[in-house]
C-alpha cells in the first residue's frame, strides 16, 4: 500500500524534483549549445535531407552522462581515412528545453518539432571544441519518478559533415568546419585589366601636327581639315584639344598614307578663330592604333609605350572612358620603323577592394556562381570557398555580399581544389599525366 502521507505525483512534488534537477544541472553541468537543424530541401521517395542550415545556437546546461569520456579507441583508420567515433551522452532538463528553447525555435521556418530536442540537431560541446549530432533522444529515464519524467538524455556522435551551412555567428562554433568539406581555392588578382593594342606601318603618313597659333574664342573643338595625299593615298584624321578657349594640341587619330609633301592643316568652326598648325610626314611611321582589349578599371589615362625606333620613336596618348580605353591618339607617328612596333600600355589599378568575411556569400559578376567564404589570404589573394553553386569563370569579379570586397579571378591554371587531407585527386592526376595516353579525352576528368 502506498504511503498516504505523500501524494505520489502532485504538481508541487514534481516541480520540486524538477527544480532540484535543474539546480544540479547548473552546478555540475557543462554549457553546451543546442543547434537546431533547418530542413531547406528534402527528397521524396528516397527520403533524405539534402540541404540543411544550422544558423541558430542556444546555450543550455547539460550534464555529461558519459563521465568516463568518449570511450576507448575513438579514432579508427578505415579505407576512407581516419574517423573519430567519439560518442557522448548528455542530460538536459526537460523543463528548461520546453520553457527556454522551444519558444525561441517554434517560429523559425523549416524547423521541425520544436517542443522537444530531436535527432539530427547538433550539439556544440565546448570541451574539445567539437560538433556532435543527436542520434537518439531518450525521454523515459529515470522512469516516471512521481509520475513524470524530468530530463532528456541526448545520445550523440560526432557530426559527419558534407556541405551543410553552419552559420550561427558564434565563431567558436562556425570555425569548426573552416577546413572541412569540399573547398575550392580561387587565385584572385586586382580588379583592373590591362589594355592591349596593335598598329601597322605606313609610308608617307602624317608624323606630327604642331600648333603654331592656338587662336582664341573657341567654345568647342574645331574640326581639323587635312589636305588630301597623292592619288591612291589615304587622308589623315586628327582632333583638336582645347585649353580654355584656345587650341593647345592636335592629336592624330589616323596618320593616313601616300603624302609626299607636308599636308595643310586647317581649323574649321568651333566658334573661335586664329588657330593654325603645321604638319610633317614620315617614312616608316605607324598608322592608326587598333585596340584589341580595352581593359578595365582605368581611373586615369595610362602611359603608352612603343618599341624604340632607329629613327624616331612614336608617341601616343590614351583616352579613358568608363574605365576602359576608348581611343589611342598619336602625337608623333615616329619614323624609321622596319617592323610594326609593339605597344605597351600601362596597368590600371591592380589592387582589389575590401576584405572578404568568413561565411559571407560571394557571387561571380559574370557567371552568377555563388559560394561561402572559408578563408581569405589577402597578401597572397587566395580565397577559399565552399558550398559552391555554379562555376566561377576566369576573369570575372568575385563580389562579397556583406563586405563588398571585389577581386578578379586570375589564371585558372593556378587554381587548385582541396577537400580534406584525405584527398589525393590532384596527386593522382599529376602522376597520371606522364603515363596515360588519352589520345581523345579522359571521360572522367582532365589529363
Amino acid at each position, binding site marked *: 500500500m502506498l504511503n498516504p502521507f505523500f501524494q505520489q505525483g502532485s504538481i508541487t512534488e514534481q516541480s520540486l524534483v524538477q527544480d532540484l534537477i535543474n539546480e544540479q544541472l547548473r552546478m555540475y553541468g557543462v554549457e553546451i549549445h543546442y543547434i537546431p537543424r533547418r530542413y531547406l530541401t528534402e527528397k521524396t521517395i528516397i527520403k533524405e535531407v539534402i540541404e540543411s542550415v544550422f544558423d541558430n545556437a542556444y546555450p543550455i546546461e547539460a550534464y555529461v552522462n558519459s563521465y568516463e569520456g568518449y570511450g576507448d579507441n575513438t579514432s579508427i583508420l578505415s579505407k576512407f581515412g581516419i*574517423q573519430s567515433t567519439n560518442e557522448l551522452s548528455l542530460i538536459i532538463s526537460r523543463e528548461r528545453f520546453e520553457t527556454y528553447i522551444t519558444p525561441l525555435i517554434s517560429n523559425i521556418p523549416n524547423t521541425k518539432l520544436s517542443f522537444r530536442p530531436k535527432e539530427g540537431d547538433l550539439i556544440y560541446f565546448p570541451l574539445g571544441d567539437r560538433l556532435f549530432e543527436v542520434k537518439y533522444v531518450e525521454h523515459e529515464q529515470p522512469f516516471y519518478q512521481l509520475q513524470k519524467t524530468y530530463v532528456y538524455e541526448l545520445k550523440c*556522435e560526432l557530426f*559527419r559533415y558534407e556541405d551543410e551551412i553552419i552559420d550561427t555567428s558564434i565563431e567558436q562554433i562556425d570555425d569548426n568546419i573552416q577546413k572541412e568539406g569540399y573547398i575550392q581555392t580561387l587565385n584572385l588578382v586586382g580588379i583592373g585589366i590591362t589594355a592591349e593594342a596593335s598598329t601597322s606601318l605606313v609610308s608617307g603618313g602624317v608624323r606630327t601636327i604642331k600648333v603654331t597659333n592656338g587662336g582664341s574664342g573657341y567654345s568647342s573643338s574645331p574640326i581639323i581639315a587635312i589636305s588630301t595625299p597623292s592619288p591612291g593615298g589615304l587622308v589623315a584624321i586628327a582632333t583638336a584639344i582645347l585649353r580654355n578657349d584656345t587650341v593647345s594640341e592636335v592629336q592624330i587619330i589616323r596618320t593616313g598614307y601616300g603624302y609626299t609633301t607636308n599636308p595643310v592643316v586647317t581649323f574649321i568652326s568651333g566658334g573661335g578663330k586664329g588657330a593654325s598648325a603645321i604638319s610633317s610626314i614620315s617614312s616608316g611611321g605607324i598608322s592608326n592604333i587598333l585596340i584589341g582589349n580595352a581593359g578595365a578599371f582605368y581611373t586615369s589615362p595610362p602611359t603608352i609605350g612603343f618599341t624604340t625606333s632607329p629613327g624616331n620613336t612614336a608617341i601616343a596618348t590614351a583616352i579613358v572612358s568608363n574605365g576602359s580605353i576608348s581611343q589611342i591618339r598619336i602625337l608623333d607617328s615616329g619614323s624609321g620603323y622596319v617592323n610594326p612596333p609593339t605597344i605597351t600600355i600601362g596597368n590600371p589599378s591592380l589592387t582589389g577592394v575590401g576584405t572578404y568575411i568568413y561565411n559571407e556569400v560571394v557571387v561571380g559578376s559574370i557567371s552568377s556562381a555563388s559560394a561561402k567564404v572559408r578563408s581569405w589570404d589577402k597578401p597572397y589573394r587566395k580565397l577559399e570557398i565552399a558550398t559552391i553553386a555554379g562555376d566561377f569563370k576566369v576573369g570575372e569579379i568575385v563580389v562579397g555580399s556583406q563586405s563588398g570586397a571585389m577581386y578578379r579571378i586570375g589564371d585558372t591554371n593556378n587554381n587548385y581544389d582541396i577537400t*580534406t587531407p584525405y584527398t*589525393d585527386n590532384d596527386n593522382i592526376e599529376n602522376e*597520371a599525366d606522364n*603515363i596515360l595516353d588519352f589520345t581523345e579525352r579522359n571521360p*572522367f*576528368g582532365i589529363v
Partner: protein
Amino acid sequence: MFGYFYHEILRKTVIGFGTLFNEINIKHKKTNGTEISTIKVPLSYGPTQKFLARLEQSPNLNQPVQMTLPRMSFELTGLTYDPARKVSTTQTFNEVDSSDNKVKKVYMPVPYNMIFELSVMTKTNDDMLQIIEQILPYFQPNYNLTIKLISNINEKRDIPIVLDNITMQDTYEGNFTTRRSLIYTLRFTAKTYLFGPLPTDSSGIIKKVTVDSRIGLDNPSRQMRYTVTPKATQDYNNDIATYITEDLSIDDNYVTVSDGSIISANTYITINDESMFVKSKSNTGNKIAVERTQPVLHSSGSAVNLVTTVDNNFIEPDDDFGFNESMSFLDDLKQYSTSLNEDIDL
C-alpha cells in the same frame, strides 16, 4: 639469376586506375532545380601507413567532426595470372631504348590481372546514385586505358579495366545508436602486362640487305644480286668543308660558299642541322642550287658540312635516312654461304 629491374608497371596501373575516378562531382539541387552546391568527390588510395594518416588527417588530435562525406577509396586487392592472354615466351619485338638510343630486343610481357576495389561512401543515397550513375555507363563492361608501361621504350598498352560486380551496403535498420552506413563497393579487373628486364646490349639496326636471285629450281648459283645499304642524309662527323658567305633566308634556294670546289651535285650538305640536297653548281662553282628540307635562316659564316659515305656508319635508329641501291649480274657459278659470310664455289 635475377638482376634488379623495376618498371613500376603495377604502380602505373594503380595510378591509371585511380585517374578514372578523380574528377567525379555531385550536385545538390533544390526542388525547383536551382543548384545548391557542387562537391568534387575526394579520392584516395586506401592503404597507407597508420602514423602518416594520423599525422596528416588528425594533426591537432581534436577532430571537430567525425569525417567529411562523400569519399571514394580504391585499393589493389589481388593479382592473378591470365592464361587467356598468354603468348609465346620466345616471341620478341624491337623497340628503341630512349636511355641509350639503341634498339633493344624485348621479350613479350606476362599477362596479369590486377583486382581493384573502388569503395564509395556517402551520406545520402542521392549522392551515391549520382556517383554510381556517372561511372557505370563507361564500363561495357570494360573501359580501355592506354598506359605507357615502360617509358624508356615508349611501350604503350591498352589495359582493359573490367567492371566485375557491385556490392551495395546500406545499414539503415537497427536501433538509433548505430549510424546508417552507406557504402558501395565496385570490383574491377585491370588486365595489365608485366615486362621482364630490358636487355642491356643492343640488337643494332640492319645496315645491309642482300637479295640473291637465281633462275630455275635446280640451279644453286645466283645470277643476280640486289644490295641495299643506308645512306645518310645529314652530317654526323662535323667535317667542315667550307662556309657560306651570304645570309641564307628561308625561301632562298641558292647557297653562296667560299669554296664550292669540294661540293658535288646530287649529294647532301648540312648547314646548322638543316640538310640540303645539292641540285647543281654555278659555273664559278661557289653558287650552289639546293633543295631545302626544313628551311631556317642561316647567317653568313655558317659552316657547310658534307654528307659522305663516312656518315653512313653513324646512322642511328629513328634517324631519317635514304638508301644506296646496287644491282649486279653474276656469272661466276658461285653461291652465298651464310655461315662463311662469303661466296663459295659450287
